[in-house]
Structure formats: structure tokens, C-alpha cells
């Protein structure tokens, strides 16, 4: 997108994904959430009876749980939830070739750069538009090895036994209010199975986009990395800017079997009126390793704490998190690690930047159960404050029941040093360039873990965010 590049270079604080496609949908439910909506969603998907029951049960749980009073400000959410559409179906059926995807949806994704990526290196791409997956493909070589990368609906239809064995086992509907909500109305998301010993050298990618105003998105992803497999999954999220709030509540369940390695990367850049309340959790078995790489740049309020349940001896969990909170944004993010087996290890590194009236909060749990001998964990949180109206918080919970464990938590809060700025400006950089450079340096330990195209994107986003932030 070279032409766009120059145009964007001139815009200050422009939200790149602020383009709206004309609304075209085949079906949508009435606003609000009730049993009828749940039944309609299930009927639209021709689901087996057990899934409808699962959904209806989840709805009851959702209704019985109170709104959380911690984390971000959810006081306005009840009103928002009454107004949004819980299910919107943009087209009739799933496409497997890019050419078959309707033009307006294609335009959106082209602006997101999907076909480009597809042509280059991607192993598989799933794209979700509104509530449904519209495009999904998988490179032939992986397909031959038995890798499954389907929409979640296809997963349920085509692999019913595998699906039912794992679905809802990592995050039961009763886990929290929003997991219950998702369990009731989930739609779209990915179903991934990596067979024993298969190593994917290039990442699987999914994109989520909300186009319609007052729209709720409830994607559900289930990933099973079988013994000794090795894979990386990347999701990106965007939405155009609307005057009313939208809502996203995903549930991501991952099972990492013995000796497997799995990495899940999210770059969340929802527009600034999006509530983003996501539950992500991985169960990590013997000597397996799970890595969450979580970048939160967009949304009005994000509450998201990727978790690793280390249940097998020698399991390893890692959470790398970057949050950028600009004007009016609250990023309440962090991570949880539960050590439930001996010799498990984990590390959490969190970097946050608060700018303007933005607020970045780290919230984390580190728990070592009695018997998890030799558990080791280290948590590091660094916060950077740009303006005197910015705010940062750190809320770590450390619960240790095992003597033979070593855990540490450290957090620092600082402002961009005047000397650093002065030095860089003395070398000819403008104040804004200097600021952007310092901020990039600050997040470097995490950005370097990203695939190149995402690292470039992240740097660009940060530069955009930093413009006009000085003085």
C-alpha cells in the first residue's frame, strides 16, 4: 500500500482502519441477548443438539453472574449490551478461494493486507467478518500432514469427536461472566489441530474485523497442539470508528500436549469505542511450552489476561505483553500463570505506555500450588508515562503454597528522561522522533519477538500514537 503510506504519514493520530464498508448481511438477530437470540444463532449454524444445550446453559450462567466490579469501568456496559446485535451473518457460505469472497468484504481485507500476506508466506489464513469466518485456506503441504485449520463451525461439523473432547474444557462457561456470554452466543473463530510431531515453520493467521455499528463479536477458538508439535498462531483485530460502542468478547482455548510448543500472538487494534473482554487460556502438559504474545493498542477498554495452567511436570509458560493506552483508553491487561506440577517454569514480561489521558493497568496472578516443587517464576512489569494526565497501575497477585519454589516480581514506573530526550535532540532528532525512538527502545524486548511484518506495523502504530504527544 505505498500510496496510502504517504497519505497516512500526514495524518496525526489517524486510526488506520477507520473505513466503513456498506453494510451487507444475510441475517442478523434483534439487538440484545436472550434465549431467542441464542436459539437463532444455533439454528443458523445447524448445530447438534448438545451444542444448543451448552449454549442455553451458558446463557443461564451469564444471567446469574454479576457484572465484575474490578478492572475497568463497566458501568455503561449493560446499556451497550442491550443495544448491540449479538449475531450478524454477512454472507451465505464459507469461501475457500479468495476470488469468491464478495467485493466489499474483500476490499476491507485488502486494506488489511491479507491477500498480500497469503501470497507470501502464510501457512493458512482465516478471516472473520462480523460474526462468521468468510475465508479460510490452508497450504496444501500442511493439509497433507493432517493439520486442521478450520472455522470453528467447520470444526464442529467435520471433526465432531475431536471437537467435543476439548471444547469448553479449558474455559468452562462458568469461568466468568463474559466467558459465559461467549459460550451462549459464540460465532466464528478458528479450530486448529496440529498432529503429533508436526512442526509448522510459518505461522497460521486469522483476522477479525467488526464492520457494522453496534455489533458484538464473540469468536471462539479451540486449538489442540498434539504431542511434540510446534506451531505459531497470529490473530489481528480491527474495527472502524463508530459513534456508538461495540463489544468483543472472545474465548480462546488451547491445549498444549506433551513436548509440544505453541505460540499465540495477538495484535489488538480495535477502534477506540470497543469494549474488548477476552478470556484466553492454555493448559500446558508435561515438558510442553506455551507462549502468549499479547499486544493491546486499540479499544476503549480491554480486560484480558492470557493464562497458562502448567499441569504437567516441566511445563513452561511465557507471557509477553505490550499495552499502549492513549487518550480515553484503558488497557487492563496482564497474565496469569498457575504452577500445578513440579519443575514448572514461567516468565511474564509486561511493558505499558500511558499517554494523554490513557490508563494502563497490569493485573496478574502467579500461583504455585503445594507440591509444585522446584517451580520458578519471574514477573517483570515496566510502565512508561508520557503526560501528567496519564495513569498507570500494577496489581500483581502472588500466592505461594510451596516452599521449594522461587518467584519474584518487579515493577518500575518511569517517565521518558529529559536527559535522554536532550541527548537525542542534540544529535539532530526532533522531539517527536526522539520520543518515538525511546518508546521503541522501551518495547524492543517484546517487539523483537514478533514476525517482521507485525514488528514493522507495531512500530508504525507507536509512531502514530506518539505524534503530538510531546509538550
Amino acid at each position, binding site marked *: 500500500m505505498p500510496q496510502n503510506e504517504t497519505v497516512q504519514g500526514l495524518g496525526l493520530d489517524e486510526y488506520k482502519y477507520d473505513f466503513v464498508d456498506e453494510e451487507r448481511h444475510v441475517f442478523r438477530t434483534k439487538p440484545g441477548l436472550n434465549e431467542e437470540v441464542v436459539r437463532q444463532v444455533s439454528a443458523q449454524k445447524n448445530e447438534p443438539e448438545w451444542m444448543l444445550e451448552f449454549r442455553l446453559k451458558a446463557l443461564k450462567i451469564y444471567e446469574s453472574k454479576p457484572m465484575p466490579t474490578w478492572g475497568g469501568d463497566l458501568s455503561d456496559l449493560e446499556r451497550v449490551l442491550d443495544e448491540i446485535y449479538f449475531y450478524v451473518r454477512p454472507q451465505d457460505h464459507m469461501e475457500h478461494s479468495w476470488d469468491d469472497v464478495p467485493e466489499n468484504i474483500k476490499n476491507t481485507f485488502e486494506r488489511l493486507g491479507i491477500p498480500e500476506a497469503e501470497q507470501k508466506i502464510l501457512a493458512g489464513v482465516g478471516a472473520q467478518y462480523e460474526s462468521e469466518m468468510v475465508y479460510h485456506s490452508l497450504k496444501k503441504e500442511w493439509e497433507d500432514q493432517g493439520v486442521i485449520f478450520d472455522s470453528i463451525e467447520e470444526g464442529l461439523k467435520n471433526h465432531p469427536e475431536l471437537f467435543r473432547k476439548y471444547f469448553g474444557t479449558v474455559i468452562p462457561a462458568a469461568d466468568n461472566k463474559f466467558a459465559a456470554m461467549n459460550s451462549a452466543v459464540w460465532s466464528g473463530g478458528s479450530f486448529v489441530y496440529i498432529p503429533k510431531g508436526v512442526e509448522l515453520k510459518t505461522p497460521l493467521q486469522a483476522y477479525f474485523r467488526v464492520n457494522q455499528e453496534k455489533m458484538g463479536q464473540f469468536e471462539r477458538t479451540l486449538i489442540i497442539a498434539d504431542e511434540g508439535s510446534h506451531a505459531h498462531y497470529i490473530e489481528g483485530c480491527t474495527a472502524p470508528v463508530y459513534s456508538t460502542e461495540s463489544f468483543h468478547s472472545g474465548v480462546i482455548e488451547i491445549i498444549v500436549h506433551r513436548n509440544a510448543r505453541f505460540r499465540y500472538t495477538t495484535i489488538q487494534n480495535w477502534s477506540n469505542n470497543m469494549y474488548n473482554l477476552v478470556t484466553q487460556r492454555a493448559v500446558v502438559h508435561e515438558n510442553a511450552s506455551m507462549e502468549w504474545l499479547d499486544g493491546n493498542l486499540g479499544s476503549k477498554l480491554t480486560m484480558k489476561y492470557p493464562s497458562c495452567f502448567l499441569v504437567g511436570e516441566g511445563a513452561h509458560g511465557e507471557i509477553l505483553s505490550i499495552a499502549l493506552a492513549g487518550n480515553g483508553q484503558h488497557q487492563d491487561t496482564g497474565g496469569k500463570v498457575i504452577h500445578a506440577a513440579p519443575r514448572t517454569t514461567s516468565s511474564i514480561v509486561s511493558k505499558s505506555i500511558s499517554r494523554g489521558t490513557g490508563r494502563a493497568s497490569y493485573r496478574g496472578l502467579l500461583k*504455585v500450588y503445594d507440591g509444585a516443587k522446584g517451580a520458578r517464576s519471574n514477573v517483570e512489569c515496566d510502565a512508561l508515562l508520557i*503526560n501528567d494526565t496519564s495513569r498507570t497501575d500494577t496489581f500483581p497477585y502472588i500466592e*505461594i503454597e510451596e516452599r521449594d519454589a522461587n518467584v519474584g516480581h*518487579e515493577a518500575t*514506573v518511569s517517565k521518558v528522561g529529559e536527559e535522554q530526550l536532550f541527548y537525542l535532540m542534540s544529535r539532530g532528532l526532533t522531539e517527536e522522533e526522539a520520543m518515538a525512538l525511546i518508546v521503541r527502545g522501551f518495547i524492543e524486548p517484546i517487539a523483537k519477538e514478533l514476525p517482521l511484518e507485525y514488528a514493522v506495523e507495531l512500530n508504525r502504530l507507536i509512531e502514530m500514537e506518539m505524534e503530538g504527544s510531546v509538550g
Partner: protein
Amino acid sequence: MTDTNSTTAVAAPEGVTEILNRGLLQTLAAFDPSWLRERRAHAWDVYEETPLPTTRLEEWRYTDLKKKLDLDALRWPGKTECADDFAACPQGLRESMLEDHPASGHLWGIDGQVIHVDLEEGLAAKGVILMSLREAVKAHPQLLQRHLAHDALPAEYGKFEALNAALWTDGILLFVPRGVRLDLPVRVTRWVDQAGVAFFSRTLIIAEPGSQVSFVDEMLSRDLNETSLVSHAVEVIAQDGAQVQYVSLQRLGKGAFYQASQRTLAQRDSTLDTLNVSMGATTARVDLNASLLGSGANSDMLGLYFGDDSQHFDHNTSQDHVAPNTSSDLLYKGALDGHSRSVFRGVIRVHRGAQKTDAYQTNRNLLLSDHARADSLPNLEIEADDVKCSHGATVGQLDAESRFYLMSRGLSREQAERLVVMGFLGEVLSRLPLGGVVEKVTRVIEEKLRQV
């Protein structure tokens, strides 16, 4: 108006019992001046309106009050007859006082009543006041009216703060006038002798501009066969440029539920340091807030705990940086043995506009047994950008390498372990090397270690 209300059984407000009720309040306040009667009555109203803390409250998440304390079972203490005669007071109290170093003044009391006060000659002439709160109500009503349960711990602060403000029976007033410096600490020793009862006492310390004082507050008891609630509210005010050290040594026996609310207010250029040593009691909950209200104010906050058996310690601290150019540094360290459990929850709050704040917070825990548990929640809430803040928390076991080294030099395993633990905890004491305190605390820790 109908009389339906009178026929409906109305549940008593939470925490109101057969003993702790408005009738008791009226008895206690019968001889109070009107301002104090009103203050107590107001505190009682707040107490009735405030629900009992439950684990659903963030600050009480790990201490389940319902399981630890049965308010309904508590009786009101009987009158303790003890003459102002050192030889006649309980042995445990005597032993501890004999261990003490010289002091500017002493105060000792039993079961919530002050028995004895002495103050170095000359200090009284300079205007220093050290007296029981009961006496102070008569002798210095304006001073108390201005500060007691008012600036630092008004009833609105919380359920226990309201209860204490309503029902306190005695306590201590220490007033140090402008520019007066006390070379030696003031030492307070309190003894609790009755089981199954509730005690409420208060300490009010006012250090006028440029004054200096150290205050050591020791709380002791025998082992109690029924739970006694020992509630203690501490208000410390350091005015401009004053230097104040407040040290609390909690060495209560088994069966005690110790509940302390402490708040320190540091004005411009003052230094207000605290040390909380928690060794005794079955359950000890300490709430400490340090407010830095004037530019240049500094607070060092130190804490030390050693748990064994099924002791439960809960230290809940906060550092409020309200004015710019203030600093605070917190270090809480603890060792946990047996089935003991520690909760540390601390928060640094940098208020909007409190630029140039330096604030630190460290909590380190050593688990000495397979059944001990430590929870640590160090929080930061930062609303100013030009600040330096950091916190750290660790939980771990005894450093095997240090132990191995010491054993290779000929020490037994026990000796080596003791040394490592002492070294670990000693860091806290070395930061506030107050004569008498270091030796006493070291001896108590060694006693505990001997039982390991």
C-alpha cells in the same frame, strides 16, 4: 405512621452483639465531656452502618474475618486491679521492661488501662506531654478534640476504626512541642491478661515543627485459651520538619486476634518512619497508611514478621503521595514456618500533581516449611508522570548455597540455617537501629528459630 415496623424483627447491624452495643457505648461515655461523647456516638453510628469486611473486599481477600474472629463470643474485660508498683505487675511485662535500654519516659498498662507513666525530668518543663488518654481528656481537652480520631483515623476510615473510636477505654497521648528533641525513646509496654475479651486502645502522637521523638510500643500477653480481640488505633502526626520514629513490637500470645490501624501524617520536610514487628498472636492484621502531605516529607516503612504454628499475619500498607517532592521506602520481610501464613498487600498511590515522587516497596518472604504459605500483592497506582516508583516481591526458600558455605566452615545445619534466616531478617533491623529494639527482636527471632 403505622406500627408495622415494630412488629417486624429487624436484624441487628453487623458487628453489634450482646456486649458490643449502644448500651456499652453509653456506659463508657457517661463521664466524658460532651465533644467526646458526640465523637464516640458518631463513631458508633458509622460502625453500625459499615458492613463487616468479607473476603469479597480486595483488602480482606486472604483474611476471612468470619473464620478468625467471633465478635459475638467476646466479653467486656473485667477491671484489672494493679497498683502502680513495678514489682506487683505481671512477670512477662516485668521481664520485657527489664530488658529495655534507658528511655526518656515509660508508660505501662494492663488490659487496656494505663497503670504507670514517668517522664525524664526537664522534659515536662519543656512542655512534653506523656500521659494516659483518660487523663489527657481532662488535662488537654482542646488538643484531643482537635486531633483524636479526627485528622488521621476518623471513624469513616473503616469498620474497625469506627469500633475503636467508639469504644476505646484508654491509650496514650504523646505531645512534643516545637523544637524539643528527645534523646532517648519513649517506651511503652502493654500487657494483656484476660482471655475471651475485647480491648480497645489508642495512641496519639503529635510532634510539633522541628521536634524529634522515637516511640517504642510493645504489646505482650500470655497465651490465651479463648480468643481476645486486641484493637489498637495509632495516629502519628509529624508537623513541619519534625522527625518521628514509631516502632510497634507485637509479641502477643496464642489466642490473640491483633487488629492495628495505624496512620502517619507527614507534613512539610518531616521524616516519619515506622517499624512493625509481628511475632505473636494467632491472627495479626495491621493496616498502615503513610500519607505524605507536605513537600519534602519522607517515610521509611519497615516490617518484620516470623510466623510459626498456624499464625496468620496480614499486613496491609499504603503509601499516599499527595504533595510533590516526597519520598517513601517500604521494606517488609518475613520468614514463615509450620503452617503459618502471611499476606502482604501494599499499594503506592501517587496522586495527581505529586510530581518528583520517589516511592519504593519491597516484600520478601522466606518459606521455611512445606506447609507455610505467602501471598504478596504489591500494587502501584500512579497518576503523575515525573516520578520514580518501583516495587518488588519475592517468595523463596532458604538459600542452599549460603547454608552450604556456612556448613563447610564447620557450622551445623541448624546453626547455618539460623544464621541465614537472621541475615535475611536482619536487613530490616539494620535500617532502623534503635537501641534495645534490635536486641529484643533478635532474641525473639532466635527463640522462634530454636523451635524450628
